[in-house]
């Protein structure tokens, strides 16, 4: 395993907001508004993050080296040039993947119990 992968697997679970933001950025470069929209989309509208939650978490994600600011700017015809875009670092991608595996294992272990008490199959 690479040093980045090894580092990621040893990190503790992320906070929920941090996880949503990492997953919302995904393979793209996104600004705050796009992150907010994407979090809403991937959670089926259940999670609505405000500017405070997003940017306090972005600050910590930047500090942890999980995301970085992109220098590239989109076409001014398509977007506001003053926006800042964020993307995952190699460590961020690795941590996000680790987090998805953790969640997957959690759901797998809970599924038999959930089905046994009559929760609907998906």
């Amino acid at each position, binding site marked *: 395993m690479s040093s980045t992968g090894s580092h990621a697997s040893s990190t503790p679970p992320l906070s929920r907001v941090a996880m949503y933001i990492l997953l919302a950025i995904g393979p793209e470069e996104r600004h*705050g*508004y796009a992150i907010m929209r994407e979090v809403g989309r991937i959670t089926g509208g259940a999670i609505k*993050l*405000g*500017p405070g939650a997003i*940017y306090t978490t972005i600050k910590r994600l930047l500090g942890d080296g*999980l995301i970085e600011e992109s220098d590239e700017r989109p076409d001014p015809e*398509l977007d506001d040039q003053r926006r800042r875009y964020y993307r995952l670092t190699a460590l961020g991608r690795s*941590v996000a993947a680790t987090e998805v595996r953790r969640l997957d294992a959690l759901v797998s272990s809970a599924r038999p119990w959930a089905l046994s008490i009559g929760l609907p199959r998906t």
Partner: protein
Amino acid sequence: MTAFDMPDRPGPSERVYAGLMQLYPAAFRERYREEMVRLFADQLRDARAGRGSGGVVTTWLRTLADLASSSIGEHLRKDRTVAQSLTTFEPTRGMRLLGLLGIAGAALLLWAFISFNPFQDPAVNRIRLVAFGLAGVAIVLAFYRRQAVAAPNLALLTTAGVVIAGIWYATTVILSEGVDHPFLGSFGLMNMFANIALWVTPAIWAIGVLHTGAAWQGMSRNQAIATKLGVMSLVGSIVAWFGDDRLGMVDSLWGEMWQVLALIGVAMNGIGWLTLGAVLLIGRRGPKQA
């Protein structure tokens, strides 16, 4: 103008929101103000266009709640990283200092409890009352980060309750001394409710701590046991409220028993803060979890 553009001149709502950003730490504000105001403007634009999940009023209310929780959180954990570790318990210097303050306040409470108040000088006694009023504030602030990792909203709500109650109590002790007034006096309504809050809010906080289980994550076995005992002691301290009841309700309900319950509750409050303070003060790195 594209759907992503923001006009150069912000509207009244954006200006108000920009002003409210004074609530954040200066460094954070400096770095993120422009982006956050832009995001808020985007949300308002969606709300006005019917694309958001609510109207302008809903957007404002949601943003104010977000502002309140995130600004307090940013002040309390401005140096915290997302990978906030619950896998080890290693109190920072600030946590140890808060633990020490908690121990000092709780020790003063218990000392007076055991010695039947040796602090005869009113000025010294006031210092004692203020100190144990603030003991809980110190302890809950020290545990806030760990709590917030597991349940941010619950942590904020329960911590704020203890902080407000402790500061409120300390303030009324200082301001009401020698004052004979039905509202502001030593036995006035303000003082009475401050007393009640002083016993009730720690119990609520402690129930929250038991609920999340984050407080003792990563601690050694002995630290974890001490923490659980301290927290459970604080849950029990709610019975001290019966001793502070001055409306006569408790008297009629419990008769003579209220005095015993009150004393037990006060002792549990002191023991709870003392134990948690000791855990913070002598905390060592716990075993790493897989």
